[in-house]
């Protein structure tokens, strides 16, 4: 009797577990890591759309937001050991080359991308690829623009539209100083190189040379950092709390209305909306000032390449979901509408129904339209090289070099010479 009861019990358990397996056969659960809250939200939105279009291959996304350094380090450890990696992961552009070293432990996305790549800016795909294989799905173009706090500039008698060159910028800064001694025209970053890199690109230069060597001690870099340092010394600029605008301290500082200009990639618009509420209706967008008129006024900066790891459950499905979420026309529309980023599908930049939608919350925040500016500089958007030595360069620049220049106000020529030497010694 006891044996029979046991047998029946076991049989029931087996059947019921088989049944539950059957019921969830067409929903695949994926774990996803990201370091930006807004990205996680976007992925959930795109998952809902995917499920509507693919009822027989549904996806359930478990997205986790981790701090930047932590997430990248954890991913690195997981990929090195082969255990514990998520199925899908955001990897920021400045750390991406580290994941391409040796044999990338990432799933090639060529097949999944095939239906969409014609419409996507090729260079944004290139930074996340190796040996002809695409490993990361780009998020945006990241065109750098200047965000101007119009109210305080008007008080100082400055029309932001007149600022074309860095000389104009400095002059405007001096006028601002007369009216608001405690405010600044902008910030000199020590924890990131947005403005410095934009200044390099204007002069046709880059952090990495064409033969993959660090290009730190160059004429162009000297011009860029000296200009910034002089403005800092004149009190036109200040250093940014926490090192750069895209930090808690930085955003808080901007929210208090202390700076008239924020020079950041276009995706910083989403941070204005979510985390800088007091400047709503007071900010305008314009091209970045240049050294001489005629220089290219923008540069694609920042970026997140989303990867599928080799340990993912259903790599093909994950890759197809990813390609849909970030490269399809629908995905690109949502990248603007939900995230406020400039999508890689640049054909959409002239779709005025999308770009000038008055109900779009990003359009409501700013005084002018982002795409008017983007289309104005569309042909002038430079791209920087992403090389295997970029993480090393970025590391030194954002911890030591910029601090020496803008916190300690050391002699730029000496700092650059030292930086070139140390970075070269770190490369092997």
């Amino acid at each position, binding site marked *: 009797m006891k044996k029979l009861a046991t047998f029946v019990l076991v049989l029931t358990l087996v059947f019921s577990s088989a049944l539950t397996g059957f019921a969830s056969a067409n929903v695949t659960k994926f774990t996803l890591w990201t370091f930006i809250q807004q990205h996680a939200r976007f992925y959930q939105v795109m998952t809902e759309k995917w499920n509507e279009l693919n009822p027989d291959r549904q996806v359930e996304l478990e997205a986790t937001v981790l701090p930047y*350094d932590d997430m990248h*380090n954890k991913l690195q450890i997981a990929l090195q050991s082969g255990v514990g990696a998520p199925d899908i992961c955001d990897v920021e552009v400045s750390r991406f080359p580290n994941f391409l070293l*040796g044999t990338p432990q990432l799933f090639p996305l060529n097949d999944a991308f095939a239906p969409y790549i014609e419409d996507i800016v090729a260079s944004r795909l290139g930074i996340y690829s190796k040996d002809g294989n695409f490993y990361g799905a780009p998020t945006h173009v990241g065109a750098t623009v200047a965000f101007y706090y119009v109210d305080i500039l008007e008080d100082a008698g400055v029309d932001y539209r007149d600022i074309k060159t860095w000389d104009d910028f400095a002059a405007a800064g001096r006028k601002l100083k007369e009216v608001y001694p405690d405010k600044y025209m902008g910030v000199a970053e020590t924890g990131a190189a947005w403005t410095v890199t934009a200044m390099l690109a204007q002069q046709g230069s880059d952090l990495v040379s064409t033969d993959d060597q660090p290009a730190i001690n160059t004429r162009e870099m000297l011009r860029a950092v000296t200009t910034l340092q002089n403005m800092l010394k004149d009190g036109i600029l200040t250093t940014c*709390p926490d090192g750069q605008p895209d930090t808690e301290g930085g955003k808080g500082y901007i929210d208090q209305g202390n700076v008239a200009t924020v020079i950041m990639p276009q995706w910083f618009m989403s941070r204005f909306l979510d985390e800088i509420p007091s400047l709503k209706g007071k900010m305008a967008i314009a091209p970045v000032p240049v050294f001489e008129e005629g220089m290219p006024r923008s540069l694609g900066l920042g970026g997140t390449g989303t990867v599928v790891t080799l340990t993912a459950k259903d790599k093909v499905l994950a890759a197809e979901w990813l390609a849909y979420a970030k490269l399809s026309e629908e995905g690109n529309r949502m990248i603007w509408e939900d995230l406020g980023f400039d999508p890689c599908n640049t054909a959409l930049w002239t779709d005025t129904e999308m770009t000038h939608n008055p109900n779009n919350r990003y359009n409501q925040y700013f005084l002018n339209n982002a795409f008017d500016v983007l289309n104005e500089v569309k042909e002038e958007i430079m791209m920087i090289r992403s090389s295997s030595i970029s*993480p090393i360069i970025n*590391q030194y620049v954002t911890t030591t070099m910029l*601090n020496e220049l803008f916190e300690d106000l050391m002699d730029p020529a000496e700092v650059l010479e030292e930086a070139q030497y140390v970075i070269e010694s770190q490369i*092997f």
Partner: protein
Amino acid sequence: MNKVLAVLYDQKVAPYVFVLPFVLTFLIFFVYPLITTIQMSFQDILPGVVVPVGFKNYQRLLGDRIFRTAVSNSLWYTVWTLALLIPFPLVFACMINSRSMKWQGFFKAALFLPVLTSVVVSGTIFRLMFGELEGSFMNTVRTFFGLSPIKWLKVQRTGFATMVLMACWRWTGVNMLYFLSGLKNIPLELYESAEIDGANAWQQFRHVSAPLVKPTIIYVLTISIYAGLAMFTESYMLWAGNNSPRNIGLTIIGYLYRQGWEQNRMGYASAVGLVLLVVGMTINLIQLRLTGVLGRRGG
């Protein structure tokens, strides 16, 4: 089954059975990683590609400026923590141990409480307290005394001082307890006979407490040397990551972490780890020789 039990319970075999868990743990978690680390330090390791490179990693270490910064930071940190975290806890322990001290339990608890906090939490709180903005706690104190706010964690001196301060706040309690237990082992009769012989408090300390608490001091010294050289979490939490401005907070382990996991160079990181092992071992062996724990050479 009975045969197995007979073997296990055998008088000769039993000791080995008891020691087995420790031996296994030691072999798996200490000896094996040590051997593989030595191996890895002679290689360049990338996923799917492992290339033996001989002594190249060590050669690079010699010329690596940032590694020298890390070593210098770790060494100075060790020196300062030794200077502050041995004398003062010893004094506190003597004070608490003394018969004339009131509210011993309270002081013991108060000094030990910081030890119970998580390093992560306390590091974060210290980072906020020593923040660079005017509203941070320390800057508020400075402006109260009419001084201007400073960027505590961006400058070498103050950043380093904050790190040492945090260590002192945290570890005084532990060292104090070590010394306290060492002092408790000293029989009271020795103090009584010293008093009868006319010794005052300082002489009692010098001639009774200090020599008899020496083994404890040596123990604390040894573990402090290791802990100082291998410090990582405090620095990591104080600067919210491994990237302190101009590497003022970078330690040897911090550099190992950076090379191994941030820059994906496990071979180089292994070399860093081994250098730390050799440095720490050398310092401690010298120290133990000098204090007489390990036999003297030639009397």
